């Protein structure tokens, strides 16, 4: 071979070497199947994607974080405010409402990456922008209820009125670098003032987004427009390809043994095609997968499992995504009335007839746990003693018989209604077309239900159709008439709003009907006791008392089964052997982000000390196989 050819090959292999780092140069390559659009959009004016939150854990610190056990942990604040330490004051403001005042103190040793101290000016700036009229905030209730009082450079009080229990979970307020963003904000404010909020709302939104874009887009970040407060800083972002982060020398936490023992450079590789991501893992080009990476099936792919020995571990971490089927309970819909879906006995019979454990075993090797209610088994308020519905088709048949159903000659249950019509138990089942797991699930349950005489009629449509307002929210008008399988994401601050009929605190009704302009996502399950307990729990700041209310609510829910709980989805993560503290748990960083305590991530061979044990928080897929 000619000399020139060798030179080319050497060059290419050199480049390959640069792409493949790992413990050799104390770096880490994380593979993700999504890419954030912006990073550092502190107010979520543009986007609030999970992948952005995961990466932002490397770059910015909050006042508190949710630790691996789901508990609040102080971060930039000196301590977590509680009633016991006198930092939280609860005041009764009448009409069953409460106000809370939360006092925070910032640490003395915290700096932005350019050396500027982090002070209450940064908190006040965050507040000023988010609260500004016309700001396109995605959680209007939060911004309507919050107020801020700055005491000095390090102390401030955040108040909520009315206040809810979740205002005390995680950081009560954010912060943004005032010294770098102020000038641009003043220009934006001047532009906004020229406009009419009623006529020019869209233009004002663009101005807010334009303000964020000055700092948070790849171009702005590559020009060094933003500063960082987390354990890493952003070095370079190649949109559509990769993002490079390097250790922040100004970060205030020193991991055990010294920061030089932990990864110094992190590269996110964005590989949107998950099959290509799987190949990248097989080829050794990825050290760990993001919380947004492989599908559950891909993580158990024989190619990956066969190759894992001596190379990497595959974990299934129970997540907070609740796969279930909503039941249309609007009795004004003829099909609902005919099938008596508004009666709890019918829903109980359906659950007894559906082999959920069989489904989980058959499709997921048992790695996605069956759900009993909407409350996760890792949630501190979880009630394990609720009524359960193990697979029992005989019991289902008995319940259905007690409701007047008889087996027809064609093997389908039938009954005669009060007005003399003969109806057959033909149940509509809707889910998102193209989602293979859901399509398999409905066929599995179709088969189960057939055994008790229920014929399932599948009526799938693309996600954009079934989740459109005209379809999803209009069950009252019979847009869907039976079961609707999809998933809710119930974080650690879930307030049972999905199952609330009447909100005694706000007076609103969450059952979508023409009367309330189809507001809410409760498809007509109204239980007064449940609603009253929920109203008490919402303003109960004593965790033990709140747990009592929550457990009673679960007992009621499990008896009534307003929806059919299937299973909790697990997040698969793949981690190379020797990488420590890249660990996920159900509530780590609220939604299981393995980067929540990013300063601890390192290679054992480089001296990093293992602090967490993934085996405590997830199931080893390789041991299951």
């Amino acid at each position, binding site marked *: 071979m000619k000399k020139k050819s060798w030179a080319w090959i050497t060059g290419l292999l050199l*480049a390959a070497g640069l792409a493949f780092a790992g413990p050799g140069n104390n770096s880490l390559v994380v593979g993700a199947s999504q890419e954030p659009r912006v990073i550092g959009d502190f107010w979520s004016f543009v986007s609030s994607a999970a992948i952005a939150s995961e990466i932002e854990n490397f770059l910015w610190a909050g006042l508190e974080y949710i630790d691996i056990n789901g508990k609040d942990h102080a971060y930039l604040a000196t301590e977590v405010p509680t009633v016991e330490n006198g930092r939280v004051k609860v005041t009764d403001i009448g009409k069953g409402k409460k106000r809370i005042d939360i006092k925070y103190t910032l640490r003395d040793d915290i700096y932005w990456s350019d050396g500027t101290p982090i002070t209450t000016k940064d908190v006040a700036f965050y507040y000023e922008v988010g609260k500004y009229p016309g700001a396109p905030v995605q959680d209007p209730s939060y911004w309507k209820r919050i107020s801020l009082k700055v005491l000095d450079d390090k102390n401030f009080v955040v108040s909520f009125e009315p206040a809810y229990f979740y205002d005390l979970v995680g950081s009560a307020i954010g912060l943004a670098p005032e010294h770098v963003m102020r000038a641009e904000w003043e220009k934006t404010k001047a532009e906004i003032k020229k406009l009419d909020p009623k006529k020019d709302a869209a233009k004002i939104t663009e101005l807010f987004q*334009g303000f964020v874009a000055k700092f948070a887009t790849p171009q702005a970040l590559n020009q060094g427009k933003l500063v960082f407060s987390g354990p890493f800083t952003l070095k370079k972002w190649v949109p559509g390809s990769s993002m490079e982060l390097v250790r922040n020398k100004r970060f205030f936490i020193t991991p055990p043994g010294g920061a030089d023992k932990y990864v110094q450079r992190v590269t996110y590789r964005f590989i949107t095609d998950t099959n290509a991501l799987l*190949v990248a893992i097989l080829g050794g080009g990825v050290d760990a997968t993001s919380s947004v990476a492989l599908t559950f099936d891909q993580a158990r792919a024989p190619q990956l499992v066969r190759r894992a020995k001596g190379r990497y571990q595959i974990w299934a971490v129970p997540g907070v995504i609740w796969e279930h089927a909503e039941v249309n309970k609007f009795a004004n819909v003829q099909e609902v009335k005919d099938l008596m879906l508004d009666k709890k006995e019918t829903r109980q019979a359906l659950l007894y007839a559906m082999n959920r454990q069989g489904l989980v075993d058959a499709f997921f090797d048992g790695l996605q746990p069956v759900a009993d209610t909407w409350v996760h088994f890792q949630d501190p308020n979880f009630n394990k003693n609720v009524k359960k519905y193990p697979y029992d088709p005989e019991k289902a048949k008995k319940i259905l018989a007690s409701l007047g159903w008889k087996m027809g000659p064609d093997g389908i249950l039938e009954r005669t209604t009060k007005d003399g019509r003969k109806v057959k138990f033909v149940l509509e089942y809707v889910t998102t077309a193209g989602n293979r797991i859901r399509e398999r699930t409905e066929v599995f349950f179709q088969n189960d239900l057939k055994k008790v005489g229920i014929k399932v009629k599948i009526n799938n449509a693309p996600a954009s159709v079934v989740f459109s307002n005209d379809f999803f929210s209009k069950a009252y008008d019979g847009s869907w008439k039976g079961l609707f399988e999809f998933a809710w994401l119930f974080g650690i601050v879930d307030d049972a709003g999905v199952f609330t009929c009447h909100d005694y605190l706000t007076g609103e009704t969450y059952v979508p009907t023409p009367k309330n302009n189809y507001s809410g996502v409760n498809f007509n399950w109204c239980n007064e006791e449940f609603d009253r307990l929920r109203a008490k729990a919402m303003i109960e700041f004593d965790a033990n008392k709140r747990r009592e209310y929550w457990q009673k609510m679960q007992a009621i829910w499990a008896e009534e089964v307003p929806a059919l709980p299937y299973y909790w989805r697990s997040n698969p993560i793949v981690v190379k052997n020797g990488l420590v503290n890249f660990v996920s748990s159900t509530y780590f960083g609220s939604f299981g982000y393995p980067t929540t305590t990013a300063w601890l991530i390192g290679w054992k061979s480089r001296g990093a000390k293992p602090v967490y044990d993934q085996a405590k928080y997830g199931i080893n897929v390789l041991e299951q196989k």
Partner: protein
Amino acid sequence: MLAYTLRRLLQMIPLLFFVSLAIYTLVALQPGDPLEGLIFQNPHLTQEDIAELKHAYGLDQPIHIRYFKWLGRALQGDLGVSRTYAQPAAEFIYHRMQNTLLLTGLSFLLALLVAIPVGVFSAVRQYSLPDYVVTFLSFVGYSTPVFWLGIMLMLLFAVWLPDRLGLDHPIFPVGGFASPGVDPQSVGWAAYLKDRIWHLVLPVFTLSVLSMASWTRFTRSSVLEVLSQDYIRTARAKGLAERVVIYKHALRNALIPIVTLVGLAIPGLFSGAVITETIFSWPGMGRALFDALLEKDYNVAMAALVFLAFLTALFNLLADLAYAVVDPRIRYS
């Protein structure tokens, strides 16, 4: 010719107006709107909150009002801001277009450089073993799904071959645009260029296979048709060398339909290749347009689609004009 060209250019104005109206209507009529997903992230949102947000994003207005507002701004050169990227739509598309043109342009060139000589070779040796081999490979290339080929090539060069050769890194990378940390400042231009080429090999090859296969077949049949013409027989009868007969008399005439076909394929270079770009994590127009449509990012979708419509109309005109250039029998008045 000039009058004809001007007339065709003027006809493009109403054409683009109706095309933009049709595209805007179709994009806006997709089920759901960009904010409906918010309720799944935050079930606390009331209909009033959603109505406020719709007002804030201008989504509460009827489609025709929104369209004419968009058109008014577009005529002043303002294509709006991407809702999901927070960047001016034109700037965003410009960046993506550069990446796409690099990928599609190279694959286009590769396909042409392979397809025309191989097609001529195959036609000249009709029904010989090499012709059968080329025909077989063309059909294989034509019928191989791009997503499958891409993944197989990645497996071959990033997993199987490195395993067999005992390498701890891939021969070609699993997608991406460039290696992280490799830029001209840190590694120098030579290493940077090598890295970029290294990343281009598999996607360019994958993307060119289909065109290569179809253009080879097209060239073969076009050359075969010309070879049976009387003037070729005459050229051979008067004793011209076979090389001259093929390349001077046959190929030049056979190229007329090929030029048209290739000319009409040029707008496709700008629209990108969704599947190839997705598999190889290539940040190009195809992926950007696909994502914009999925996420209902109207400004990006409109800017990209109207620009592509303009290019299609323009290259149709250029192809028509090219007929007159390559075929003296055609005259426009």
